[in-house]
């Protein structure tokens, strides 16, 4: 048993060290002898055991004594732990590929492949009344009861549906929008866009209102304008003139849209949209629902693609 465990450990260490490569070679020889039903009489196990014992003995006689006495037990424990950790690692790699996190979709636990947790970060939403973070979790997220007709939407008849809650000035939303636009175009998705300014600032509310006016004016041109809003510099988004200019460049009447955005009816519609968006219990942007399944934070493109293709198994 020791040889099998040693083979794996020394093979990994052998990547970095010639000494350990030799140990790995000897461990392989030992394993090969065992699987061919021959005795492993190379002395490899004894040699490694003695080296470990010699080091332990220099620190603690008790530890050395225990190690020597239960060497085989330790070898078995180590082997079982190694097999378990290998499975766990393989599962982690699989999950990272499909979900952008080793621990599953939307999990913020530590992942070695994404140590900073970038794939799960969100611009957190604050409750405007209590100034506290919204107290909901991933399991609360739902599209049930959400009236999609209140928001800009394209390709309604498509089978696969994507609902994106994002804000123009939020970094993570800005980071992920190009991938979402690409995904929508490639798979011809039923795409609903919900603009929700998590900081609830005046300029953000204005942008929601302006967006509604653009969509009302020309649903087709809304998506081009929307894409430009995410691509523009954040500092320009605070300027109503800049936002209007983007619309003008698309052949729309920028001044009329500015007037529309300040209209009370439009502002009422925005408040109604915000209220409706909150029924999803989302707690930060971007939150993206693909066929009802929520992905919180800016995932890699492959994650969204897998969600559309239903490649997620566990």
């Amino acid at each position, binding site marked *: 048993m020791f040889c099998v465990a040693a083979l794996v450990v020394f093979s990994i260490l052998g990547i970095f060290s010639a000494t350990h490569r030799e140990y790995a070679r000897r461990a392989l020889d030992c394993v090969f002898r065992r699987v061919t039903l021959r005795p492993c009489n190379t002395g490899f196990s*004894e040699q490694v055991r*003695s080296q470990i014992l*010699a080091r332990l003995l220099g620190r603690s006689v008790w530890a050395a004594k225990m190690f020597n006495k239960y060497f085989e037990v330790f070898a078995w424990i180590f082997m079982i732990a190694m097999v378990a950790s290998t499975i766990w690692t393989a599962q982690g790699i699989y999950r990272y590929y499909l979900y952008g996190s080793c621990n599953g979709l939307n999990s913020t636990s530590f992942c070695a492949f994404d140590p900073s947790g970038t794939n799960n970060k969100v611009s957190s939403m604050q409750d405007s009344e209590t100034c506290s973070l919204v107290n909901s979790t991933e399991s609360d997220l739902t599209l049930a009861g959400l009236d999609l007709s209140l928001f800009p939407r394209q390709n309604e008849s498509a089978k696969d549906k994507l609902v994106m809650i994002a804000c123009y000035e939020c970094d993570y939303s800005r980071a992920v929008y190009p991938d979402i636009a690409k995904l929508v175009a490639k798979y011809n998705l039923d795409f609903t866009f919900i603009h929700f300014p998590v900081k609830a600032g005046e300029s953000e509310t204005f942008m929601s209102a302006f967006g509604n006016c653009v969509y009302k004016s020309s649903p087709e041109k809304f998506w081009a304008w929307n894409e430009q809003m995410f691509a523009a510099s954040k500092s320009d988004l605070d300027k109503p003139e800049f936002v209007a200019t983007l619309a003008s460049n698309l052949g729309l009447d920028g001044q009329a849209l500015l007037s529309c955005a300040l209209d009370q009816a439009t502002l009422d519609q925005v408040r109604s949209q915000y209220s409706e968006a909150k029924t999803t219990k989302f707690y930060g942007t971007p939150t993206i629902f693909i066929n009802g399944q929520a992905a919180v934070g800016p995932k890699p493109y492959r994650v969204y693609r897998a969600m559309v293709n239903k490649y997620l198994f566990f």
Partner: protein
Amino acid sequence: MFNTSQVRQDFPLLTRPDSARQIYFDNACMSLKPSLVIDAMTEYYRDYPACVGRSSHHLGQLASQKVQAVRAKVAKFINASSEEEIIFTRNTTESINLVARSLGIKATDRILVSDKEHNSNLVPWQLLCQQTGATLEVLPSRADNTFDLDHFAQVITGARLVAIGHTANLDGVTVPISEIIRLAHSAGAQVLVDGAQAMLHQRLDVRALDLDYLAFSGHKMLGPTGTGVLYGKASLLNSLEPFLVGGDTVESVTYTDHKFLPVPERFEAGLQDYAGLLGLGAAIDYLSALDFSAIREHEYQLNHYLTSEVQKLAKFRLIGPEDPRQRSGVLSFYFDGVDAHQIALMLDNMSGIMIRSGQHCVHSWFHAHKLTGSARVSLAFYNTMEEAEQFIKTLTKINQIF
């Protein structure tokens, strides 16, 4: 008193900067080599790398003279009657096989060996007896692993040959060789002595002992590997059948017949390890200059200290007699329930102490005694009391985990 620090200067391995981490206690397997030996071998390859006994050019002649001089040194070292009684072989094993294959053993012959023989002095005789129908008898040792001369005296009658190790590599016990030879000759038997373990620790005088055959290796007596010697009385060697034959063993050859050279060339087939033989000559020069009585006392002092200290350890079991004077420079031991290899490996890992572990090519004895092996310390004159103390200190620590 033996000057250890002076002789240690002659051994490159003992003068290296890391020599403090190299405690060599495996001399029964292989001795260290002094610079003199290494230089002699280098000199051959550098200055006269020619064929010996064949080429008439000046390099060939020089090489031949040098190798012949080694033969003379060996003869003098063991006090042989003439150089013709010295046959160069590859090692003790080959020397013994040479005798076994050339002696003309018959089905009616009896061969006696001790119960502690190295495989090299047991297997050739086992095979020979299986092939010829001769009888191989094993002489049991006494309870303390010493030679039972009384039993020997009772069974020697009618034996053709006694093949016996002078000093056992198992436990360092030296047999009473003079008495054995005297009794054997009285009974009309010849005696072949495996002297491999003796040559580093004492001088053997083949004429004083009236030895018939003596086999030994260069590598256990400061010389290079691949060198060995078979001494035989000239009259006996001349009666032996050829062993390995071919180049340099024949005086003339026709398509149908051949005429062998006289001894020793008759038994030295093919090109030999001349560099090794010159190294062996240098080793004999070195050993000849040493005081063997001082060496014996020095090794006794070390072994006495080691023996008295290790006996304090729990589970310790000694192989051989308790008196270190009876064990040459060997301390062979085991701990109950502990793998001897583990002890050896830990000594090496912890303090760079090199000992031998296992069955030391004496499997027959271990099988008979139902033991898996032993750890064996084998000393040489260049070992020191400080090294012995370090050994005890380390072994005491190791003993704590068992």
